[in-house]
């Protein structure tokens, strides 16, 4: 039977990144402690990046919605003002 490292290099050479990820997770218990620590470490780093990006993404999304709403309100006011001027027969000087 192939040892776990031979299997790893086989998947690394032939498989996709996803295959390598799955292999590391599925065979996690077969690795010695020092390798387990590295596996947890790299996936942790990646998860922190993703959690941070998600947080910033949500913040930016909310900011954008709020900005859009401000523009919308300003435009609605402007539209009302122009309509009123038109109704009253006042020419816009702008």
């Amino acid at each position, binding site marked *: 039977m192939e*040892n776990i*490292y*031979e299997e*790893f*290099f*086989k998947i*690394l*050479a*032939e498989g996709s*990144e996803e295959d*390598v990820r799955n292999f*590391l*997770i599925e065979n*996690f218990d077969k690795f*010695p402690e*020092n*390798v*387990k*620590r*590295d*596996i*947890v*470490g*790299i*996936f*942790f*780093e*990646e*998860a*922190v*990046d*993703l*959690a*941070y*990006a*998600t*947080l*910033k*993404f*949500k913040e*930016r*999304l*909310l900011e*954008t*919605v709020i900005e*859009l*709403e*401000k*523009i*919308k309100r*300003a*435009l*609605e006011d*402007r*539209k009302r003002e*122009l*309509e009123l001027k*038109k109704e009253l027969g006042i020419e*816009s000087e*702008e």
Partner: protein
Amino acid sequence: MVIERYRRRVEQEKIEQYQQHLESVSPSLREILADPKLFGLLDLLLEQEYQKATKNQDEQDKQKIQTLREKLLKRETLAKNDFEKLKNYRDKIKEAVDASKEVLKLLDPKTIEIIAGSSESFKQLVEIIDIKNVPKFLEAYLARLYVTAPDKFIDLRGKIEAIKQAETELKNIDNELKAKCIEYGIPEPEIAKIYEESKEDEIRRLVKSRLNIFQRIYDYITGEKITTERVKELNKINEVANKLQQINENLKAIGEMIATVVFETEKGLDFASKAIYGEIKSEIGVDFKELQYSEEELNSEWEEYITEQLANQNKQWNQLNAQQKNLLRQEFIRRKRKEFGNKGGGFLEVFLKMIEEWVNTKL
């Protein structure tokens, strides 16, 4: 009375001196040499010094580092200047261990849960090892990251701090976004339906198309200095009406995007975050493709290396003792690490670890 006071003062000074003594503060040199995790850090520091000496073409320094390394591996008697050097390394190791512990303090179960919620791979691992064991697994990894890639360590710590700080805000942001989503025409049951029914490809397609809109809207907003200035430019009712129409469409699109992307669809989130935040995407050290290495390639490199080394020493493999074999293995790993320059962390660390383990099982 005076003598007694003097005696106490001398004793107190001795205690203080002892407390300041390096060996009284953990990790001591003895602990470092006895603990494989700490010894690994020492070896990394020696490797860094060796690389620095190579770069500076300082052959004398290179030789000194190599000799110290061999002495440590062979457990040979150390000279006085070896101890002085080791004390400097010990300080750096303590710094790395302390930095790692500081980060671990931030990682309570709630924060780990938030982090794990963003990555399916990490989530699966947390389930295997149990959430309470996560810090234990990360301690040595973080200390090593501090030594190999300090910038990356600082970046990671900053991100964890930001996530921790936002723990309470996150719920509010989620609620606000959910409210906006409903406000722009996506009823709550519909949001749940989208989560349940969304398939990965569909999410990607949807997110992609929505992102384009999102980016356009964002450009539109940020392209203007002040919102009111923009409004001032518009002096015709039709133009204002058109703009309003555009804004309404965009708000609706944003509502749909929030519903599709923001809540619980991890793949969609992953995609959207990476697409928008290309600039904050982490340095994973090396690209996965750079590491697509077959065992045959590795084998042939090892064979070439070992043949050359044995020829230099005019010996056969079976004539070497365990320590000499170990030194050759370490040198092979060192060369592999050198191939990737200063890139550290990420898959490279696992890759190098696998090579190390592979070399050890082979011989």
